[in-house]
């Protein structure tokens, strides 16, 4: 029980201090909304009971779904392409020589700097956002997959060929499962990047979603809604990571005893 209480001390103190500071009037209320007014805005945005969030009242689910779909689309695309390219580069010298220089040159370019091109190529809608999410999520998946494939125990491959595996079977039944822990590490980094880039894209190139609400509220000086949007993004990002962690714990249950719970 003691650890339960310890867990809440710091957050409660911070929230209380923030509430008091905000109410003290030291800063204009609009610039630093109190936690209570953020909660007020968030709950009206979610269930729409007194229209403090005006046109957003009750629209949270729609905004959240719009963002989540972009995250999911870009992330899924990046995972597929990232794993495929990573396996190819990690496994074959030819692909490594052909693809890696170009990809490593593209990697340091911040995905955000693609926004102008994304807008002229794809217009203002879902596509530029999905493109940006793809760019942000692709490289972590790619790098971790390459690492995972390259560090597969050589003896596992030998065991595979001893059992008569074809080249294709070596890839699908030995290299890929052996690389899965690294691939999942990449996927977890990627889902975080995906949320960051969805929100960034929505602030600039899309007219819906949590990022759009955040940026739009900034123009109306509604910092309570800005913060409500920030909290929503954090919460949904946390949920996405939890989902991937769940899939990972199931898929990698063979190593569960050594990593996930193996410390005690």
């Amino acid at each position, binding site marked *: 029980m003691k650890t339960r209480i310890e867990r809440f001390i710091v957050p409660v103190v911070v929230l209380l201090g923030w509430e008091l500071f905000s109410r003290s009037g030291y800063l204009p209320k609009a610039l630093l909304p109190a936690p209570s007014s953020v909660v007020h805005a968030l709950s009206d945005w979610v269930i729409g009971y007194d229209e403090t969030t005006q046109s957003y009242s009750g629209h949270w689910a729609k905004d959240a779904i719009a963002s989540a779909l972009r995250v999911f689309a870009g992330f899924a695309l990046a995972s597929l392409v990232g794993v495929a390219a990573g396996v190819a580069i990690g496994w074959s010298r030819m692909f490594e020589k052909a693809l890696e220089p170009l990809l490593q040159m593209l990697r340091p370019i911040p995905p955000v700097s693609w926004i102008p091109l994304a807008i002229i190529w794809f217009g203002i809608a879902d596509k530029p956002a999905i493109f940006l999410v793809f760019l942000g999520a692709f490289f972590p998946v790619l790098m971790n997959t390459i690492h995972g494939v390259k560090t597969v*125990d050589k*003896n*596992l491959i*030998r*065991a*595979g*060929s*001893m*059992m*008569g*595996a*074809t080249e294709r*079977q070596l890839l699908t*039944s*030995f290299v890929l*499962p*052996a690389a*899965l822990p690294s691939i999942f590490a990449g996927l977890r980094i990627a889902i975080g990047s995906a949320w960051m880039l969805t929100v960034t894209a929505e602030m600039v190139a899309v007219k819906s979603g949590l990022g759009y609400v955040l940026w739009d509220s900034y123009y109306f000086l509604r910092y309570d809604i800005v913060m409500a949007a920030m909290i929503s993004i954090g919460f949904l990002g946390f949920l996405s990571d939890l989902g991937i962690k769940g899939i990972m714990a199931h898929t*990698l249950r*063979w*190593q569960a*005893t*050594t990593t996930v719970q193996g410390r005690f």
Partner: protein
Amino acid sequence: MASIELRNISKIFTDPKRGELLTLDNISLDIEVNDFLCLLGPSGCGKSTLLNIVAGFEQPTSGTALVDGIPIERPGSDRGVVFQHPTLMPWLDVIENISLSLRLRGMSRSERHERAKEFIDLVGLKGFEHHFPSELSGGMNQRVGIARALLMNPRVILMDEPFAALDAQTKLEMQEELVAIWERRRCTIVFVTHSVDEALVLGNRIAVMTRRPGRIREIFDFDLPRQRDITSPLFNDAKRHVLSLIREESTKVVSP
């Protein structure tokens, strides 16, 4: 016809630090069907390299290696390998690891598991079918590796110091089990080891290798009946002979 024929095998490794390294020097060796041949030699003498050539993991620099008269070009399921470390797929449970070669051939799950049962019983792992390798001891994992090789029903089983990492008692048990399996199933086994006792407990032919560059110093039949008593005079005579061969070798290296 011999099961495995090695003709003038030499292997040179190119090592960036030391240049060219002659590891195997003109080795010729016939291994007959149903032989239990122990390749005995000091660390670094190239005995594992020789085994890897038969397995198809490595190619000789010169010479030919044949299994049943056919040149060895690549690894294949006609030669089962038991590695020094179990080398199981950590993501598969015991029964799936043992029957993996059948899955690669497209056999259905139920059929696979039916076939695997016999070998699980054989190596004494009943009740552990659905454990992952990370949940088993080293000795148990090594048994899984042996069962995996046996299930392939290979013409030849190649074993690379498979018991080296086990404690003394487990090693004894496993050696007895292996001899029992070999007597029952009658297959050709090539067993690499650096332990004189192990070679003399297991083999019906013993090939003693020299230090690097590896050559066959002597090869002899050893037909002591089993279970072999490692304290019997006959066993000790053989051991004395092998040890004297090894001692000759080490003095040769000290005074070039």
